[in-house]
């Protein structure tokens, strides 16, 4: 299992007993199925109301103003910015806490290491549904006793997601592969653990850290169940919830709904396209070892 790296190997004689053309056919059908919904969305988002409800496939003239309308009607200037803020707050905490914990597990010796690590892995089994009621109660309790409220505010939406077993596990796997000699020479230069972590390990681990950041970004952007539970006012409502509310309010204004969908999807896709190589490799290796 240890040799399961993801370096693409050059296939030589191996290929399945499918003709090359047939293979391309299947792959292209797959790509079409994966992409058509998105293309259709963009198309509908540019239609007018009659075209959108009339089942047309292409708009006669592109109505770009749909985007502005959807942005205003769905109050995206609020929800979009909320999500951006929530993503940033979550990511800062997530990266800091997961990196520190992963480093402790990968590079330090302390009593109870195995026990704490297995405790950590046990949390992976817990379905989100089990945590809803307890965490809701905890969060409202913390809000009552702390200077700022948690419900309808950023702490409830970010703090519970700032550390998780998956992130610690992903980074630990990578930190362990960094050769020990670096630590030895860093020690001779008088560096302690913290400086070694910040100056050597983190710069060397850009790829897994970026993977984790992307996962955190997507997770935070997508969060739905928890925001529904802990926000009763739109003040801190994230974009997913905002879009869902808009879908339910806007009836059959499909063109506006699709424009809203595009606005929601686009930031993720842009980030994904710029980081896809690191991201896909990260998933492949973490997935195998998970």
């Amino acid at each position: 299992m240890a040799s399961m790296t993801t370096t693409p190997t050059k296939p030589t004689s191996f290929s399945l007993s499918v003709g090359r053309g047939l293979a391309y056919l299947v792959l292209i059908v797959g790509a079409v199925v994966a992409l058509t919904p998105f293309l259709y969305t963009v198309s509908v988002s540019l239609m007018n109301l009659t075209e959108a409800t009339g089942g047309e496939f292409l708009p006669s003239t592109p109505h770009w103003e749909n985007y502005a309308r959807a942005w205003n009607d769905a109050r995206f200037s609020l929800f979009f910015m909320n999500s951006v803020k929530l993503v940033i707050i979550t990511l800062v905490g997530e990266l800091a806490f997961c990196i520190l914990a992963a480093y402790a597990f990968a590079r330090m010796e302390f009593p109870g290491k195995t026990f704490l690590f297995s405790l950590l892995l046990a949390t992976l089994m817990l379905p989100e549904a089990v945590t809803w009621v307890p965490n809701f109660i905890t969060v409202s309790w913390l809000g009552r006793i702390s200077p700022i409220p948690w419900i309808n505010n950023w702490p409830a939406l970010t703090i519970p997601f700032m550390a998780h077993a998956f992130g610690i596990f992903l980074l630990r796997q990578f930190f362990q592969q960094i050769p020990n000699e670096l630590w030895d020479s860093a020690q001779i230069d008088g560096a302690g653990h913290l400086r070694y972590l910040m100056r050597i390990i983190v710069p060397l681990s850009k790829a897994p850290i970026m993977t984790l950041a992307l996962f955190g970004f997507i997770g935070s952007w997508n969060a739905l169940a928890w925001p529904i539970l802990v926000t009763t006012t739109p003040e801190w409502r994230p974009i997913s919830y905002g879009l869902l509310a808009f879908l339910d309010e806007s009836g059959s204004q499909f063109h506006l709904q699709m424009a809203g969908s595009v606005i929601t999807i686009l930031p993720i896709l842009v980030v994904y396209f710029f980081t896809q190589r690191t991201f896909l490799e990260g998933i492949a290796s973490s997935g195998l070892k998970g």
Partner: protein
Amino acid sequence: MDSTLVRNNANQATTGSGARIGSYWLSGRRGRRVREALLAYVFLFPAFLIISIFGLFPLLFAAYESTLRGLNRIVGPYDGLGNYVRAIDNLTYVLAFWVAAACLFLAVRSVMTGSQTAREKGETFWSWSWPGVFIGLGIGVAVAYIFRLLPLMLDIPSQLRGAQNTGVRFRQLMFEAWLDGGVQQAFWGSLVLLVVGIALYLIIERAAGHTHHANYMGPFIAATVLLLVAASLGWLTWTEIQKAYAEALEAGEGLEIWSQIVTISAGFFLLLIAWWLWDGADEQLSDYAMVARLGAAAVLLVGGWVLIGELPRIIAQGDKEWWVGLQATVWYSVGTVPTQLAISLLLAALLFQDLRGKGFFRIVYFIPYVAPFVGTAAIFRILFSNRPNAPINSFIGAFGGSSLQWLNEPTGLFQLLLGNSVTLPTWAAGPSLALVVIMIYGVWTYIGFNTVVFMAGLGSIPRTVYEAAAIDGAGRWAQFRHVTLPLLSPTIYFLTLYSVIGTFKAFNHIFVLRTAAALGSTDTASVVIFQAFKRDTRFGYASALAILLLLIILILTYVNNRIASKRVFYG
């Protein structure tokens, strides 16, 4: 970890400095270890604080909350197993009984395996039982402490409401809660037990000397905790059954809990025996295997018959919404996991050839997985709308089909295929058409992820194996069947487990795609839990359902592991 240079320094530092205790702990080799451990705890602290509060504690909290009753009340009156009985009726007692039995079994097994390894290595084992049992008991009492403190703490915000100086008042109330008799008892009890356990541990470690003996405290701690769980669960079940009988007697009704426990347990037991016989048949000679298989089939029939006779009656008594939810979850899982794994294995195998543009395809297949699902689910809502001119319906119309209700269709798939001539029973009608659309969405979303992981798995298979197979005259299909599949089995196993668990946890897209017209036929277990919590504000009941879901996931993981240990080939 340490370099030799550092170690030498450390050794020099320790010599002759044993007298002063401060320098003993903080300098030298030992001091370095202590400081490193302390720094490690500092590094772990923020992450573990968050994970403990929001990832580990919820399990205890949900277990506690699930024994309370009441609408929109965090601390309702104690209700024992009442919430579970409302959900799955008398099956609760069967389940609680068997969970207790399983804990007992695991406790024994943990000690047995520990003693076996110790015997093989020739190390002392049983002396570790002292610290292990004490620490295990300490943990148990600590849980009791949490359970006693929790309701008092949860009550504080309501007492604070309207108070003037909240900060001072809060500290005062916290202190009062902590001074409560039961809380104090549990706290000091747990502390004493833990201290005694740790002291015993240090004594035994000293006695073992500096020879590096393995530490066998783990199995004993686990066994003690498991025994405590088994005992309390057994006691809870017993008292609850007694209570139910007493109530039934008062109402002048008959109860058949015990007979139900016996028949249902017997049914499941027979199914297990059947599985065991069938599994064992592989290793036997053909004649015996035949007999074993026949026996297995017979036992399976009897066990199945017993269960079919008993279970539906109980299900009819339980929460219908929950049973429908479980059914939907199972349909969703059965419908999506094999489909998405098969398609993505095909795509991965094709992509793994020396094809032009394979990077492009990989990126494209992954887009549905990363795209925010509220956005993509909104697309599916319009694609699979019930309007006759919606894309999918007009596509069907182009082939002369009539338009369907899709996401608004609560009727089962098999029923739709059969038409109105026959009426199937609800359990046989299959997933509703609305759920089928959700399945299509699920497959569409997760294919990319599975493909990427499969490709990584394919990349890890050494080329030489294929070359050897080719030399032996294996064709491409034979290579795929006898080389790729076995060597890929760890990946297949991982993805199966991950996807099955994923389908049992699935919430978000199902919640976005559900419609009122589908009459709850798309509500999987998670959605039912969410509704019980958010819509009905039944905190305790939702917790009980969530615990049941967790149990199902644990059982699935266990079964999956059992199968994997036999079928997966870790080359």
